């Protein structure tokens, strides 16, 4: 029992009620992501899929043995937390694959490695890599590794089971023990950690076998989604840096006979640019509103020089988006409606429209922008990503981050094959 304690709280880091800066265009955003790289979800390295399929397989296998078995979600969370923590403790502290750095930093000796605690948010993160895999795992519109509607109800397909087996059948420890057995013992709080387990788990060292399975689902399947991914993979190449989408990737696609795909990529890029400019305007609004707790008329906000500049840039971005959307014959309604709204309205009206689109951040009262329930000053490159997810933060812009993810995944596959 805890005895009485007094303390000065450190700043809370949990951010469960995330500020959503999608301006009511989340569906459009998802649409453009899928259009550019179908079926990938948020996956950008091999082990994300290996952990997730491994967890679903373990859940199924342990359920056959009876007794209480944690959900697949929790098992996946635990495996991922342990893997990231091992990588972190081994000195891989800068890797964007490693989430939970803040929590791990509070346990520098690495004493907390049990399943029970690592599956609690305080010892890892709230938003895990696993959440980025759900879409990619699916049979419909994903990479076909599992069927079902929710992660906890997923059943592995043949391909999913093969990936899980390759991951779980890795040898750990002396005497030829398998990772599968070790993880089962660990979940039941009966395992001791050894260094060989580290390598079998950490995000940065997928086995060649795992990489092959992922590669075959990514690039080796028939159908339009597979065709699209193959064409894009070829256009991206494997250079360390992500090539410029407009100057390099789109021309390569065109030259290989994928003209329509090139137009779609450009349209998605333009949509992303319009979103970024909208965020820029929102950032100006919040900066002006910070000291004005009782609000400011939209007309007054729009008179600010910097806001005017941001609004002009937004109009230009929207104009370019509409042109590229027409060229690719994309009729995504919500995004076009938003662009029309911006192009056909006065500055004050655009401000009011943006304010209405972020009700958590701002509210509109009698023509004035006021603080919303989650008001804070946001940056123009505001990210709502999670702890330690630098990769996503860096790749936020221009809706190309799905392409950046594909590029990262391809390089991870290549690395594993070379090992």
């Amino acid at each position, binding site marked *: *029992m*805890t*005895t*009485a*304690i*007094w*303390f*000065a*709280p*450190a*700043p*809370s880091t*949990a951010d*469960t*009620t995330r500020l959503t800066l999608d301006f009511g265009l*989340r*569906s459009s955003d*998802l*649409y453009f992501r*899928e*259009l550019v790289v179908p079926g990938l*979800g*948020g996956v950008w390295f091999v082990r994300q899929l290996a952990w997730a399929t491994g967890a679903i397989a373990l859940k199924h296998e342990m359920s056959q043995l*009876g007794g*209480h078995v*944690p*959900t697949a*979600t*929790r098992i996946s*969370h635990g495996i991922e937390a342990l893997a990231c923590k091992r990588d972190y403790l081994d000195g891989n502290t800068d890797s964007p694959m490693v989430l939970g750095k803040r929590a791990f930093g509070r346990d520098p000796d690495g004493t907390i490695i049990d399943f029970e605690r690592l*599956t609690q*948010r*305080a010892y890892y993160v709230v938003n*895990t890599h*696993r*959440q*980025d*895999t759900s*879409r*990619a795992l699916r049979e*419909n519109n994903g990479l076909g590794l599992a069927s*079902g*509607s*929710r*992660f*906890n*109800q997923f059943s592995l397909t043949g391909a999913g089971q093969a990936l899980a087996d390759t991951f779980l059948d890795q040898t750990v420890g002396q005497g030829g023990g398998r990772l599968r057995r070790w993880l089962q013992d660990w979940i039941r709080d009966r395992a001791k950690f050894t260094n060989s387990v580290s390598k079998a788990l950490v995000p940065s060292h997928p086995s060649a076998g795992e990489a092959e399975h992922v590669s075959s689902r990514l690039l080796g399947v028939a159908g339009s989604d597979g065709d699209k991914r193959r064409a894009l993979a070829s256009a991206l190449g494997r250079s360390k840096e992500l090539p410029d989408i407009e100057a390099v990737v789109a021309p390569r696609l065109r030259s290989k006979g994928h003209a329509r795909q090139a137009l779609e990529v450009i349209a998605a890029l333009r949509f992303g640019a319009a979103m970024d400019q909208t965020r820029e305007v929102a950032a100006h609004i919040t900066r002006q509103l910070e000291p004005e*707790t*009782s*609000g400011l008329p939209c007309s007054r906000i729009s008179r600010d020089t910097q806001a005017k500049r941001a609004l002009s840039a937004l109009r230009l971005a929207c104009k370019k988006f509409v042109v590229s959307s027409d060229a690719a014959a*994309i*009729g*995504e*309604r*919500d995004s076009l409606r938003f662009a029309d709204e911006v192009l056909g309205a006065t500055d004050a009206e655009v401000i009011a429209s943006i304010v209405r689109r972020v009700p958590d951040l701002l509210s509109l009262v009698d023509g004035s922008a*006021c603080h*919303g*329930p*989650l*008001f804070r000053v946001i940056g123009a490159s505001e990210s709502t990503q999670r702890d330690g997810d630098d990769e996503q933060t860096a790749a936020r812009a221009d809706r190309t981050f799905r392409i950046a993810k594909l590029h990262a995944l391809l390089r991870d596959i290549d690395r594993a094959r070379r090992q």
Partner: protein
Amino acid sequence: MNQPQTMLDVFRPPEGLRGHTAALVAMSATSDFLEAAMEEFTGLDGQRRRTLGATIAYLMLDPHESPGRTAVFSPTQIPSLYELQPRPVDKRSLLHAKLAILGFAKSRAEPLTTIRLAVFTGNFTNESARRQLELCWFVDVGANGKASAADRADLAAAASFVRDLVSVRYFGAARASNTERRALLKPLHKLLDESRKLGPASKRTRFIHSLRETLYEQVRARLARSVESPRNLLLCGSGFWEQPRQKGRKPAMIGRLEKLPGLKPSARRVAVLEPKQAGALAAWYDQAATDGWVLVQAFDAIGQRRRMHAKFIYVGYLRRGHISNGWLYLGSGNLSWKGLMTSAQRPDGNVECGVVLQAAERLNASEAAERLFWDPATPADIELEVSVGSTEDAAGTPDLIDAPPILWATLVEKPRLALTLAWRDDLEGVSDVRIRWSNGDWVGVYPGDADVPVEPFARPPVVRVSAGSSGKEWMIPVIDPTGRVSLELPVHDTFDEAFAALLDFPYELHDSSQDEGDQPAGKASAMGTAHRPAVAQSKEYALYRAAEFVEGLAAKQATMAGTALNDWLEHLDRLLPSALPQTIIDAWRRLGLNPIRPLRDKPLCPATMTRRQASQYLRALDRAQESWGVQ
């Protein structure tokens, strides 16, 4: 529980336990912080809690309006949290106390095993949790009564304080029947009653509040009783101080602080403050005759320049750069006249609370900087620029939040589906009150009305209420016939999805369905949908589905026992009656199939059930069978 580090950590259950019931009191709160706190406390995200139909936390806030707050939180805004509607009070009086009483149990169906009392200097906002320097004190008390008498006494005193607040300053619907009260407020009263019962007959408490006596008097009395030999340090911190009355004159509260017992006349006097919120200290400090007081800017040891908001008085020793053997007040009361020198005995007095405790620890300079925001090794900045700033704990003239004329509604099924309304107990001659649920029309209602009939298909989780010509509207919770509050069960179009949701147990925090790439409900992109049509849900005949249902459910519950079984039975009772799509139920009815019946047979029941659990299980099956209309 590991050593807490943040305000949110205080809401985290001890190992092996889950949050059961919470009473939360503060001046203000924001939905983001409360949602995070509820996740910590329950281990469930909002989407999950929405389907529980359980009120887990009760919130009591100051009733004054602010730009961001003109009504209490709606019943569905933070799932499983109910904010009590405030009664009208003197506009000058502020509810400024900040505390939480948190009950923990092994599961929702089990009795409380631990009750935590936490006293904060910050409100339930992310501003407090992230950007302000705050203090917190908490203690866990075993519900078996084996905790120390001092801990139990504090918990009991705090529970009595909250109970008094509920009865005097909030609506509990005195006209409501016992059944209704039980459904909505019983968990709160149970938590408070159990906490109070744990208290020893007579024991001086560390916990203090200002319902009857000022905080200052209680701090003074405790110091006089506890401090044996005079100390040489008076360290005071506050985010706000009293407002200046006469320019340059010594603030009255400063004089009172100097007179606290247990201090040498030569004691060093330090006021830790936010320079731009110095209140009456600003003008006084400019006079350069500060009777030995030194004003210092609060120090943020982690370099984030957080704003000082904590309120504390530390009476201890300062020796060779260390502070030690101290007594500490921390709590809601600012070191202002209003904060420390008023009580709720006066109509305009504030409601405050805090603790006075022994802080025997020896803190070196960096520890003092970290825990009390003052570094004894750093010389005071005599050039500190201070200004009056604003005050926090004087209410000023904002209006009070209006409570709705009806506090909640109860759905009754017999003799017909209808809503029973719980009216406020203080209304005289009320007229022009209307209610509306789902997408129906507004219906005029009167305090004398019996029940208001509801369309047979309507199961509203909330009801809108409007009163008068102003068009003012509120949302009030609906208690369903099983006692569940604002229950919102997910609707599934297909058997597969619905059955998967039914079998999705136990709930865990990380089971959120909000995965990356998921479409928000009901907002599929027009093009996106057209581009990737959902694959048609496969086939299947009613008979096959019935067999799948029976087998799946039986397999799920075959090994369930103990705590998990209790939760499973509650889950079944809640979800089963309306879990499956109407199309499959209709098909079963047409074919004369009753998939519930086999589940009553022993081989398909949970393996080990007590008599009580067995009757609960059969009741859940009865309700489902009746709801489905299968024979």
